[in-house]
């Protein structure tokens, strides 16, 4: 059997053929306990204290009068609201980085959950972890409660008068006004900004992205005369080659790509071919983990390898051949594979380096991918940041020629590499305004802050790709005294109409004529708002010609020291959501660390320097940082996640980790996330605790994840799953077999589809009111997530192969937890659910002990209304996110996945009311509904026609720990890699 390992210690013992050492850390934390308690003794005094407390408590409880509860109806009940019944509104998520079309679930007028919009041809009903967690940003108590001047609150009228006066004065003085924004994909906002620029002729509009993709646009400008990012279609490709592009996790449009990618890799309906994916990358990402072949490369080598690849391809296709330079990677095999898949392959690179992107374009062009998998007619509108404009702005700010600056959804004082210079420049500007939702680093330095609405309180539109329109509508009235940035700008322009009317007008004038279904504008508008999307026929001219430009791969100067690679984490991203406790606690899908960033070092480097995880090193003798040994990281590189080290994010996000934006290099007018060099030095004896959620070393010789290759699969569909037949043969029991009538719910998870992105964890957290417990308790292994994504490594530690496995309660028919509960708090339901009844639970934790899957969670503390856990459940605003259909658990009870029983009950009731049967696929689990890879199937196993019954009959289907004979209702589908042998 293939040997899996989860940590570097386990890998070393495997290598040395040693038995893996027992986990050294004791099961329960003894931190802060007295000596007596550590021994597990209870003194007589303690006993009497507890006795007294119990009796006293009972007396107090008994003598309390029943509280008077009020029932306050509406004064005037809105027509669309039925209290107790959820409404869904189509909307759009766009935070300046990621785009996603969504449905917002509201209860009694309050948004509580985000689902994917299945009508969208781009996100197709998927979401990402960040999209799921964005709902909590709405209820962030740290948001600004009203406009401020020099951090003192003022009213909107005063602010408007003062700002308008100053803007007009600057215009008269002929001084520059800068409108600095993140990428804007809203056509209406763009039009409005143009109007603003016309009103104030000295105004300049500059786009700044935290993580720049400028090189792709520049390269296309050189080669195709169009400064665009093409739209990529992975579903049309047979071979994808990625170079440091984490397109399933963070790169460009991960939800869209994950949908396309996974659809071509499931092999559930008898397909014999699957998308092949080869990844060259520096640090291990979920994209590299999902790849069929992965090669660690130094990011500075990337363009040499690409140029060699181009030359090899060019050689066969009779194009320009460049002299091959030395490269550690042999590209002949790769070139042959690409040639076999001419016109149906994609080569992508995530580097913001013009030479690299020129070569990538040349490769895609020579392979004929433009027009098939790469679409220049519908280019992506995301990532419009212009590095050059930003550099020249810095220059002008330094000279003092800028008179006013307005920041919209951008935070250069934190995420610009030369933030210090930016801050100095800001000092010289007479009028500085920010639209920040909370007092971020830039807003702190601005005179005026005119807080923007959250996107769930706003009207907006979006055009993520040419011809693909999308609508944002408010799902709640603004909670605080905020105003949408667009409305503020309109006010300052002297416009009388509001932004909602502005969008309507824009759609009426520009989009209404691009469709023929609706004859009246109102009906077109209503349909678009209802659907959340509108797709028009428009496209850019298909007439693009390729200008051959001389390609080169200039050597990146390699100073001494280690090369630094900066990456984004799937949860935290660029750091704009740093104050979101859900995202902070979401473990990184690869390193399994939460609440921090850290210096990733390769196993060989760790050996060389004698470093292990949690040791502290000094970087360039300037600051200190913990290290984490990351298998799969290129051995001469160290990697750090961006998005940490915020100083003004809010209570949750401040001072977590270290800010590495200053390490981004500005070269050739582009900002690069690699290329700088660092020296690291071990600080002897110093350690820093990291909150890792998965530290257990081994699968203990059991095949928890099962995988096979495409070759083996085509010969035998059950390959890799041989154990299943062996275990099934031993199916015998003394217990009576449980019988079901009506329903028996079951779930199946396709390991071939799962990429480990963490969307399900966030979705479950939002749906089931899962508590955030903070770094200390995560370290104590008390994380509350009902679904966790286990990550297993196998093969070599320098370049491991990765499998992700989501694990939640398996709802065993023969559940070991059920028969050890002394108070019957966890019985089995007639529909096959393993029920957990909180009000009955007395907290013995026997069930947790007896659960072989470790999916039960204990509430060690009261996580709501507790100042020690000062997250969203400790303030009135944050609590608005709670799902009213699910109980908030109190201290001392066990909780776990309920198979979203509230969703099952809701849809069953709906079917009963409509006098019909429950349809297959009608009930969707929170984890399943918005999964960007559709990895999860759920349904009634008693219905032979249901999707779940079909999947369960698949020869790839197996259960976790089948030999224990727990008879789980949840099953897994083996992973298939597209490899020979």
């Amino acid at each position, binding site marked *: 059997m293939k040997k899996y390992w989860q940590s570097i210690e386990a890998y070393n013992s495997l290598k040395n053929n040693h038995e893996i050492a027992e986990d050294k850390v004791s099961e329960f934390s003894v931190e802060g306990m007295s000596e007596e308690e550590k021994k597990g003794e209870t003194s007589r005094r303690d006993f009497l204290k507890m006795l007294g407390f119990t009796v006293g408590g009972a007396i107090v409880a008994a003598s309390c009068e029943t509280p008077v509860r009020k*029932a306050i109806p509406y004064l005037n009940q809105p*027509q669309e609201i039925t209290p107790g019944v959820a409404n869904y509104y189509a909307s759009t998520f766009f935070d300046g980085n990621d785009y996603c079309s969504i449905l917002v679930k509201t209860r009694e007028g309050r948004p509580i959950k985000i689902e994917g919009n299945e009508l969208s041809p781009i996100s197709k009903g998927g979401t990402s972890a960040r999209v799921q967690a964005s709902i909590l940003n709405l209820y962030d108590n740290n948001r600004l409660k009203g406009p401020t001047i020099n951090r003192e609150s003022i009213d909107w009228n005063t602010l408007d008068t003062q700002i308008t006066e100053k803007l007009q004065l600057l215009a008269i003085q002929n001084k520059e006004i800068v409108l600095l924004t993140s990428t804007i994909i809203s056509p209406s906002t763009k039009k409005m900004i143009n109007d603003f620029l016309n009103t104030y002729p000295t105004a300049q509009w500059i786009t700044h992205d935290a993580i720049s993709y400028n090189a792709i646009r520049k390269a296309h400008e050189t080669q195709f005369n169009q400064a665009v990012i093409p739209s990529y279609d992975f579903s049309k490709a047979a071979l994808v080659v990625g170079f440091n592009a984490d397109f399933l996790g963070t790169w460009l449009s991960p939800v869209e790509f994950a949908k396309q990618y996974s659809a071509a890799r499931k092999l559930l309906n008898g397909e014999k071919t699957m998308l092949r994916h080869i990844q060259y990358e520096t640090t291990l990402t979920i994209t590299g983990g999902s790849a069929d072949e992965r090669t660690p490369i130094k990011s500075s080598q990337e363009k040499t390898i690409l140029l060699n690849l181009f030359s090899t391809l060019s050689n066969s296709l009779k194009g320009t051949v460049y002299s091959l330079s030395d490269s550690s990677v042999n590209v002949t095999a790769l070139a042959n594979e690409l040639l076999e898949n001419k016109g149906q392959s994609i080569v992508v690179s995530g580097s913001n380096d013009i030479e690299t992107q020129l070569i990538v374009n040349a490769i895609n062009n020579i392979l004929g991918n433009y027009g098939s998998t790469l679409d220049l007619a519908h280019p992506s509108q995301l990532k419009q940041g212009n590095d050059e404009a930003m550099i020249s702005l810095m220059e002008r700010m330094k000279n003092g020629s800028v008179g006013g600056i307005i920041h919209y959804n951008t935070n250069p004082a934190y995420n610009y590499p030369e933030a210090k210079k930016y801050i100095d420049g800001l000092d010289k500007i007479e009028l500085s305004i920010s639209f920040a939702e909370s007092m971020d680093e830039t807003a702190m330095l601005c005179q005026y802050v005119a807080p923007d609405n959250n996107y769930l309180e706003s009207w907006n539109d979006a055009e993520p790709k040419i011809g693909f329109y999308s609508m944002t509508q408010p799902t709640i009235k603004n909670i605080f005294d905020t105003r949408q940035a667009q409305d503020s700008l309109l006010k300052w322009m002297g416009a009388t109409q509001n932004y909602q009317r502005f969008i309507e007008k824009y759609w009426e004038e520009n989009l209404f004529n691009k469709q023929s279904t609706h004859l009246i504008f109102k009906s077109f508008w209503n349909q678009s708002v209802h659907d959340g999307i509108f797709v028009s026929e428009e496209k850019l001219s298909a007439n693009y010609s390729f200008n051959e430009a001389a390609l080169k791969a200039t050597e990146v100067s390699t100073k001494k020291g280690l090369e630094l690679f900066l990456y984004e984490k799937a949860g935290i991203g660029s750091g704009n959501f740093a104050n979101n406790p859900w995202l902070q606690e979401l473990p990184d899908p690869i390193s399994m660390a939460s609440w921090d960033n850290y210096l990733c070092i390769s196993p060989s480097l760790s050996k060389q320097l004698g470093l292990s995880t949690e040791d502290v090193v000094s970087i360039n003798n300037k600051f200190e940082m913990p290290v984490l040994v990351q298998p799969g990281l290129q051995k001469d590189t160290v990697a750090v996640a961006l998005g940490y080290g915020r100083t003004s994010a809010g209570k949750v996000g401040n001072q977590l980790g270290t800010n590495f934006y200053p390490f981004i290099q500005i070269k050739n007018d582009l900002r690069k996330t690699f290329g700088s060099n660092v020296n690291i030095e071990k600080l002897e004896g110093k350690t820093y605790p990291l909150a890792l959620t998965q530290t257990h070393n081994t699968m203990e010789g059991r095949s928890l994840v099962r995988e096979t290759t495409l070759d083996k699969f085509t010969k035998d569909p059950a390959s890799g799953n041989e154990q299943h037949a062996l275990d099934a043969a031993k199916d015998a029991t003394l217990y009576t077999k449980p019988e079901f009538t009506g329903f028996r719910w079951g779930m199946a998870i396709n390991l071939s589809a799962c990429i480990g992105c963490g969307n399900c964890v966030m979705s479950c957290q939002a749906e089931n009111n899962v508590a955030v417990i903070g770094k200390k308790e995560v370290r104590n292994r008390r994380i509350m997530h009902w679904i966790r994504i286990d990550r297993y490594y196998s093969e070599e530690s320098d370049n491991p192969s990765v499998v992700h496995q989501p694990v939640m309660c398996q709802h065993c028919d023969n559940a070991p937890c059920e028969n050890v509960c002394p108070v019957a708090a966890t019985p089995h339901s007639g529909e096959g659910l393993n029920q957990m009844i909180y009000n009955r639970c007395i907290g013995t934790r026997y069930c947790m002990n007896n659960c072989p899957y470790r999916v039960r969670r204990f509430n060690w503390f009261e996580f709501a209304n507790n100042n020690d856990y000062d997250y969203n459940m400790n303030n009135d605003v944050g609590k608005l996110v709670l799902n009213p259909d699910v109980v908030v658990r109190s201290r001392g009870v066990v909780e776990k996945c309920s198979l979203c029983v509230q969703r099952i009950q809701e849809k069953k009731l709906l079917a009963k009311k409509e006098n019909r049967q429950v349809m297959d696929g009608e009930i969707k689990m929170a984890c399943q509904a918005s999964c960007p890879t559709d990895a999860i199937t759920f349904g009634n196993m008693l219905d032979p026609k249901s999707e779940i019954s079909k999947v369960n009959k698949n020869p790839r289907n197996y259960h976790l720990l089948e030999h224990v004979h727990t008879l789980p209702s949840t099953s897994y589908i083996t992973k298939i890699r597209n490899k020979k042998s």
Partner: protein
Amino acid sequence: MRLLYANRMNAIKSIVFIFTLLFFLFPTNRQLKAQEGKDLFAVCAACHTIGGGKLIGPDLKGITERRNEDWLIKFIQNSQEQIQAGDKIAVQLFEEFNFIPMPPNNLSDDEVKILLSYINNPTGEAAVLQPTTEIVEPKEFVIEPAYMKKANSRNYGTIFYLALILLIIAFSDLVFTRIIKAKFVHIITMLISVFIMGEIIVVEAQSLGRQQYYQPEQPIAFSHKIHTGQNQINCLYCHTTASESMYAGIPSTQLCMNCHAVVKSGTTTGTKEIAKIFKSLESGKPIEWIKVHNNPDHVFFSHAQHVAVGKLDCVDCHGPVETMDLVMQVNDLSMGWCIECHRTQEVQFSNEFYANYKTLHEDLNSGKRSIITVDNIGGNDCQKCHY
């Protein structure tokens, strides 16, 4: 279920759209039965009588003789349409009845005909409805219901203290005064008193947190007895969402105004209490009712499940509300009480939803079971209510 947010209907008179909630009272797939005329009329009864004089709308006695059927069908289905179309009779009626529109009714032509035939010939006494303005106090409302007697007999306090005194006396005589020589008398007395006290403690402890016979004063002296007892207003007219949602719904102030825009003076309290509704409307502050029936937070209870699917009557759980001036919680709403009902209550097994339960259907056909109760289909599973 997606709704248009764009088309907010601020401008439309709120009275109109509260009326539209009445739609819900007419499930479209209703089977047509003759006796349904009475049910259908229950909604009309909020504003109309048959032979009882004018209310908010006209007395409907002999309506089929006054107007022709086609006109009636159109007008009942959507009166506003008729008015806007300029129909003379419709406009005249609208003006005569203070411009209070009759909400459109989602009824088929056949359903309207059934309704009309019922109005023509209402059978049974209950159908002759009395107008609000008349004070009628039929005898049966005066009789004190049985549960009230029970309420009076539950004062255990005196018995508890008597038992306690007895215990102390017996104990002190045993140890100190020693008047009675035979010790078994002390012991038996003490045992009896301890037993009595113990039982009282157990009973009282069980009802901790329960609110049986809870009858708080409400901010407005609203009487269910007058509204639903005397005036026969259907429960669902005010508690609109009981068949739709988990919550039965407390009517909004605007909903009260449907009738009280016209009915400005009550029979017992005059204008004093009704004026509070106007005050709420003027001040923009909703009325803060005291909740009588409370479930603990860890219980999920759905009215829709019980009302729309289980076809239970409101009184099955809430007691004879139509006889109460001030609502009282009649049942203890304990888990035992829920479970007991689930064990005996028959499921509406003809609902297509239950077609899945094949074994139960077989049992029913073969005569192995005579009825399917709620617990047969898993109604007593913990996670039917606790999640």
